[in-house]
């Protein structure tokens, strides 16, 4: 049954960065304005990942002007995403970082996952 549901989007690029909750990422988003195309970069913390396959989405939380938190959800495999760049990996112990909404400023920092950083350097 399930395999009849798959294989409908063969041209979709499934080679995307392996992001995790707590990662600080830069999402390079293709934006079409009329007939012009430009890239917009959204930097923030990955607050959650959900779904699998073509249904997979992730939510990025960033702090905009005046300390206003802005959350934006993207399709993980969206062709509108040029690429996802991982800036920093944090040591987090839960899958959904909704607690970030309660904190602002210094309190909303996440401890960096040093081991991940070391591993990526080797």
């Amino acid at each position, binding site marked *: *049954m399930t395999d*009849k*549901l*798959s*294989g*409908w*989007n063969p*041209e*979709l690029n499934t080679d995307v960065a392996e992001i995790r909750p707590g990662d600080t990422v830069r999402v390079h988003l*293709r934006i*079409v304005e009329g007939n012009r195309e430009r890239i917009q970069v959204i930097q923030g913390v990955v607050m959650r990942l959900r779904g699998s396959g*073509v*249904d997979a989405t992730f939510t990025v939380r960033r702090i905009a002007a005046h300390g206003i938190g802005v959350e934006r959800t993207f*399709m993980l*495999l*969206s*062709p*509108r995403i040029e690429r996802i760049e991982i800036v920093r990996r944090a040591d987090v112990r839960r899958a959904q970082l909704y607690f970030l909404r309660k904190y602002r400023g210094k309190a909303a920092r996440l401890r960096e996952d040093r081991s991940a950083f070391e591993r990526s350097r080797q």
Partner: protein
Amino acid sequence: MKRKALLGKKVGMTRLVDKTGEVIPVTIVELGPCYVTQVKTDASDGYNAIQIGFGPATRLNSPEKGHLRNLPMLRHLREVATEDSCSYTVGQVLDVTVFSEGELVDVIGTSKGKGFAGGVKRHHFRGGPKTHGQSDRERAVGSIGSTSTPGRVWKGLRGPGHMGSERVTTLNLTVARVDAERNLIAIRGALPGPAGGLVMVRNAVKVA
């Protein structure tokens, strides 16, 4: 009116994503192959129709076996009224390729059963007030009539009762994609019934 129709099994929903990132919600249906099991014409039956069959059957009774002589064991049989029934022959195989991308279709299925449902769920009654000293009124149907005149409840008054498990036709859906190799079709939007339920897909009959 010329009609084409196929029987199939609803598989489930997924999404199609195009190159610009536009998402189309679709329902996948395993459609056909169907066999023409009987041809009815003006001369033979007084009207024009074909009967089509779908799906493997494990057991058929004798009358069914006789009806399906020289045909595979088919589980579901349905009649489709169509003017051009004489252009079909018994035993002819119809598959998804009778439909093409962008075409409008109607889908007929049996809706999911909801059991014995109250008035709020079944007929969108508003229910009663939640506060101001109310008890047992939140999902009540309210008044069902007057007093000694007429002294009874009007026939046909809407109320709680069995809901779902009925024939539902969804009109004018767009065919998003046809996969002839796997006998699958992707239809934009939701279809009646559970995954695994029998559906009939026909070309749209109420197109302006």
